[in-house]
């Protein structure tokens, strides 16, 4: 810690402090921890002068940055005292000491005043970071860290009620830095650096100096030292030293001229104002520049002056090292978010740019073999409008307008989970969308996105870019299929007739199948060669059932054909699925008739008839819906001795809806006799021995029970 001592003569008429330099408003600048001794001596002529005294400030405080209250009296002369303290605050940066000459009766002698203003540098002020290793012909920073509470005091903007500090910024305290070649030296090196000493003027935290060693700087450890100015306006001494940092200068490595550009054919959209380009490879000691010329530059020429002078040759440069992915962006400006925005090509034109390597000081510019082309495509075209296409469309021509020479166009689409290059068109062409890239039948849709790329040269193109005009994409949608089902006109069909359901569709491709189910009929109610699914041809299909006489008077039935919810393409047939119902009229009814005395016969319907309940009256045994089995007669034939036999001639057995025969047989299983119904007028049936019933091994007895129902 330093000790600062000086004499302050009490010969002023007021407390106005003096300053150590014209740009400072402080008398004394010292570091927290330093010791300050002020020897006040009255040197006036007033014989009433008795004693030098101190005014505690502010507000009479005796605790903050005030000197020892029991000042040392020198030479037994109360007018010669030394005021001291080593306890300057680390947070109360500014203090004011006031001295005056008192009589034996108390204060108040003209021209016996003095005052000083003290700035205390906190211990947290100093180098925040120094580049540890700097290559010759490169640069590294030494950065300041300054407590925010301290900044206003060194920038002349701090205001205090107890003192009249200037607050308009006209005073800015200065700090000195210098580079030395040893830790103990305070002498700046004389060569090897673009600058080896200088001042910070009213600095802010984060301010830095650029350390730029050249090739004459010996590769070794150097020290960068930070000083303040003392009460004499001197600096660069051990007492004024605030902080020391160090760094190593390393020997200049050769430029790394091997890089790879991410893209050598860059396309930009018609309305683009910038583009991006990255490189990989290269060296950490090398800067890379993009110029639109390929001329040579002297090794001492600072290529960065093209940038700072806004020269038309300058396109961009690297400002940072490779990132974690090994990529280093080119930028026109260091604050331009990795974009290049100088000298962009006009519409449908190409520009070629060149890469240079330089050292860290932008010198030794070396033209590399790397070049790239950047071209502007016409991305403002008008695509077709979105539309619905028929189910029979197998190829679609998408015409577009607004295209121009020098740009190629394409359509892409997300088809089947894959981004697909659908079609390409040069100037004057149309897009052609092939069948496989069209939406599937069944209402499917596909969005086609237009892109453009500039023609660089021949068959070399720039990157594909999305369109920028009013239309950038369009949608094709397959027409949605529709299904309906209809039964025969009138909605009825009789037993013994064909029942046809017509399936009518729209927008359904030939060969599409649709499933159907029939309900309301039993399997024995009909025969059919139709099977589910039905195949659609020309937007139509039909399903036909031959309704049989079921031999049972069981009333009308409702046959319903219902389509599956989706067809074979997955398209919906409707919700709910289409269906049609038809009444199947029961024509097995034997009719009324009745006995000769039976009047009109029939009957049974309506509210009258016969109802027979069980004895407990809990269940119906017979009512109008009953179909009762009646036993009529039985007979038998023995084919051992009979080839045929006529039975039941007393009964009209001509109608299978009226009579039936329960047959038992003990002959060969495959030799059962056949039963033939005789006409109504003849009555009965004929039971005939089977043709393969040829002997006792096959013959047997067939017993036939005649029933009526």
């Amino acid at each position, binding site marked *: 810690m330093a000790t600062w001592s000086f004499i302050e003569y009490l010969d002023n008429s007021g407390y106005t402090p003096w300053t150590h330099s014209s740009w400072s408003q402080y008398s004394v600048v010292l570091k927290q921890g330093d010791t300050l001794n002020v020897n006040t001596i009255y040197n006036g002529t007033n014989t009433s002068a008795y004693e030098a005294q101190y005014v505690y400030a502010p507000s009479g405080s005796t605790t903050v940055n005030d000197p020892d209250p029991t000042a040392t009296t020198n030479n037994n002369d109360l007018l010669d005292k030394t005021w001291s303290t080593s306890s300057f605050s680390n947070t109360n940066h500014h203090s004011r000491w006031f001295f005056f000459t008192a009589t034996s009766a108390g204060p108040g002698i003209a021209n016996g005043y003095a005052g000083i203003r003290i700035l205390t540098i906190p211990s947290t002020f100093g180098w925040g970071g120094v580049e540890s290793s700097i290559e010759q012909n490169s640069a590294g920073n030494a950065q300041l860290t300054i407590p925010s509470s301290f900044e206003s005091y060194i920038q002349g903007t701090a205001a205090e009620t107890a003192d009249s500090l200037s607050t308009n910024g006209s005073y800015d305290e200065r700090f000195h830095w210098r580079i030395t070649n040893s830790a103990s030296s305070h002498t700046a090196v004389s060569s090897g650096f673009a600058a080896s000493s200088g001042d910070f003027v009213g600095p802010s935290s984060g301010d830095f100096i650029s350390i730029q060693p050249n090739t004459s700087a010996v590769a070794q450890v150097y020290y960068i030292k930070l000083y303040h100015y003392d009460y004499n306006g001197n600096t660069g001494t051990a007492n004024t030293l605030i902080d020391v940092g160090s760094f190593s200068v390393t020997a200049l490595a050769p430029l790394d001229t091997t890089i790879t550009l991410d893209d050598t054919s860059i396309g930009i959209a018609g309305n683009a104002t910038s583009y991006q380009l990255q490189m990989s490879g290269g060296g950490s000691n090398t800067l890379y520049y993009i110029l639109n010329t390929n001329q040579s530059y002297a090794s001492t020429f600072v290529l960065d002056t093209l940038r700072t002078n806004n020269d038309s040759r300058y396109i961009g440069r690297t400002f940072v090292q490779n990132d974690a992915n090994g990529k280093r962006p080119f930028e026109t400006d260091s604050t331009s978010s990795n974009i290049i925005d100088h000298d962009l090509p006009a519409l449908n034109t190409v520009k070629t740019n060149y890469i240079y390597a330089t050292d860290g000081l932008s010198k030794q510019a070396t033209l590399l073999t790397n070049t790239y082309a950047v071209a502007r495509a016409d991305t403002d075209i008008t695509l077709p409008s979105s539309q619905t296409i028929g189910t029979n469309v197998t190829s679609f021509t998408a015409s577009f307008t607004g295209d121009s020479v020098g740009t190629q166009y394409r359509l892409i689409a997300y088809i089947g989970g894959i981004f697909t290059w659908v079609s390409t068109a040069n100037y004057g062409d149309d897009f052609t969308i092939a069948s496989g890239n069209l939406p599937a039948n069944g209402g499917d849709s596909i969005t086609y996105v237009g892109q453009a790329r500039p023609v660089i040269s021949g068959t070399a193109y720039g990157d594909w870019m999305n369109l920028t005009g009013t239309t950038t994409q369009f949608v094709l949608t397959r027409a949605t299929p529709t299904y309906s089902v209809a039964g025969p006109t009138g909605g009825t069909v009789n037993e013994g007739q064909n029942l046809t359901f017509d399936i009518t569709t729209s927008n359904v491709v030939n060969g599409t199948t649709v499933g159907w189910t029939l309900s309301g009929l039993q*399997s024995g109610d009909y025969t059919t060669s139709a099977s589910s699914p039905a195949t659609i041809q020309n937007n139509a299909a039909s399903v036909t059932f031959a309704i049989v006489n079921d031999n049972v008077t069981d009333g009308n039935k409702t046959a319903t054909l219902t389509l599956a919810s989706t067809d074979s393409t997955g398209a919906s047939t409707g919700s709910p699925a289409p269906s049609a119902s038809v009444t199947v009229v029961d024509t097995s*009814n034997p009719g*009324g008739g009745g006995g000769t005395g039976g009047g009109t016969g029939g009957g049974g319907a*309506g509210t009258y008839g016969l109802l027979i309940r069980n004895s407990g009256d809990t269940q119906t045994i017979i009512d*109008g819906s009953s179909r*009762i089995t*009646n036993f009529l*007669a039985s007979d038998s034939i023995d084919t051992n001795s009979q080839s045929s036999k006529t039975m039941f001639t007393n009964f009209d057995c001509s109608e299978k809806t009226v009579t039936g025969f*329960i047959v038992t047989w003990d002959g060969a299983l495959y030799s059962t006799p056949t039963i033939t119904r005789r006409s109504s007028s003849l009555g009965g049936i004929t039971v005939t021995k089977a043709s393969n019933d040829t002997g006792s091994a096959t013959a047997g007895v067939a017993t036939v029970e005649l029933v009526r129902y």
Partner: protein
Amino acid sequence: MSYGLQFYGTNNQLIFDTDFNSGQTVTLNPYYFDSQGVLTPGTNTISASSTLTMNMEDLLFVRVNSGTLRGNMTYNTGYTQKYFVPAQDTGYFIARKSSSVVNITSLGSYGLEIYAPPDSQGNQAVTFSTRRADSSVNVDYIFDSLELTHNQSMWSSSTTGIYVTVGHMYYQFGGGTMGCYNFGSSSITYDSQLNLGIFGQASIPNSGSVLIVSVRG
């Protein structure tokens, strides 16, 4: 005859007719044999491989809840009786004409009885009697002779309470079937196919009518 009794159902289906040609109409009623072999109104179950003995004129109706319905029908020498041996537990009833059963005493002494005209000896058969039946056999579907082939679907509704007729039935493991059935919960198919060894298999159509019936009451 110029007189008698007929009644029809609401769909004009004939239920009863004393005037059907000879006037000998008798109404069939469902019965089963109880554990003592006594003919009892209603339905029952016969165990697999048991023998059900019936009069030749009795009509046998059978069912299973699900699966194959197979068995063998055999006959006595005089063809006065027939014997059914099912291959599985089988629900059944026999339909016997009213004239061949006696009154059910529990039904009381009143009701409706219809007699046939007297025969040459002056006997009158009971053709219909509410005293002899507390249920009836309702015909649901009819297949005429030769209409069915092997594996043909016969019924596609619920098979609960549904019975099928047994005329002649044959079943031999490995040999084939004749006049058998396959029951599902909502299906009945015809099972009638003989295995002919190297000649393959032959479908045997139904000989005589096949009735699908239910018991009512």
